[in-house]
């Protein structure tokens, strides 16, 4: 899958490496700014940071 994506990139090897790095950085940024904040609202991990007192 990743091998196929890498082989499908155009250009010589160093261009493909650069393109791949940019793609990875873009995906990470997207995850950090959009996906994870959205996911954390459902996450089973979120109650681990609950700091308030509330009646049960």
């Amino acid at each position, binding site marked *: 899958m990743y091998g196929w994506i890498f082989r499908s990139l155009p250009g010589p090897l160093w261009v493909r490496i650069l393109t791949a790095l940019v793609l990875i950085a873009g995906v990470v940024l997207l995850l950090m700014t959009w996906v994870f904040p959205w996911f954390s609202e459902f996450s089973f991990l979120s109650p681990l940071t609950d*700091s308030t*007192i509330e*009646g049960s």
Partner: protein
Amino acid sequence: MSRREAHAPVGSHGARNRRQGRSPGQWIIQIFGELLITLGLLLVLYVAWELWWTNIDANRKQDQAVGNLFAEFDGPVAPAPEPAADGPDYGDPAVLPAIEEEGRTFAVVYIPRFGDTYSRPVTSGVGTAVLDSLGLGHYPSTAMPGEVGNFAVAGHRQTHGQVLDAIHTLVPGDKIYVQTKDGYYTYVYRNNQIVLPDRVDVIAPVPTQPAAVPTERFLTMTSCNPRFGAEERIIAYAVMDSWQPLSAGPPAEIAPQVANNAEGAG
């Protein structure tokens, strides 16, 4: 892998033959494996986001909130002269009117024990939107700073700016300063307590005594306990010691940080 390929000559030519000659089953296994690797990387990234990125994000938003609030403040930033025993008496502290809406930043808290530069905004409400980005959240319906009763706030111990990460390092006698547009309120830390999350009486007007009528001005901070967990809550109690109007200047201990915040205002 067919028998013919198993006997293919060693070398780049043979490797290419093997790659092209994969059966559908091998492709499925390969893609499944890559998906598992992806899932593992996603989990690592999520942990990095939670423990690292949320702090950067929240710290930036909190600095902004402090800056915006300081733009409304009007008073000198030079330290007030050390009050003598017969120093000026400012009378009963001025108290902000209660804030109904959630998400309004109305105070700044300074806790020198947490570091010389520690200053965090206090915002009305304890919903996730407030606690995750705007620092300390003020429990609605509890007292305002300087008011008789219990000024109760919550804050994250870890992640999202981890505003109360060092709550367990407070030592009785430590000062906790609260600044509003009316003045500086100096609270003195008294003790902490570790309770279960449903102990709502810790934010009662007299902490842990729901039926009592308050005569003192308390400050209560709640955070999660243990660190990196939330099975319990750690509660820090403080009592108000003194106050001074904004026009008198900040207490000497926090004056540098107040000046620093004022510089960043806008």
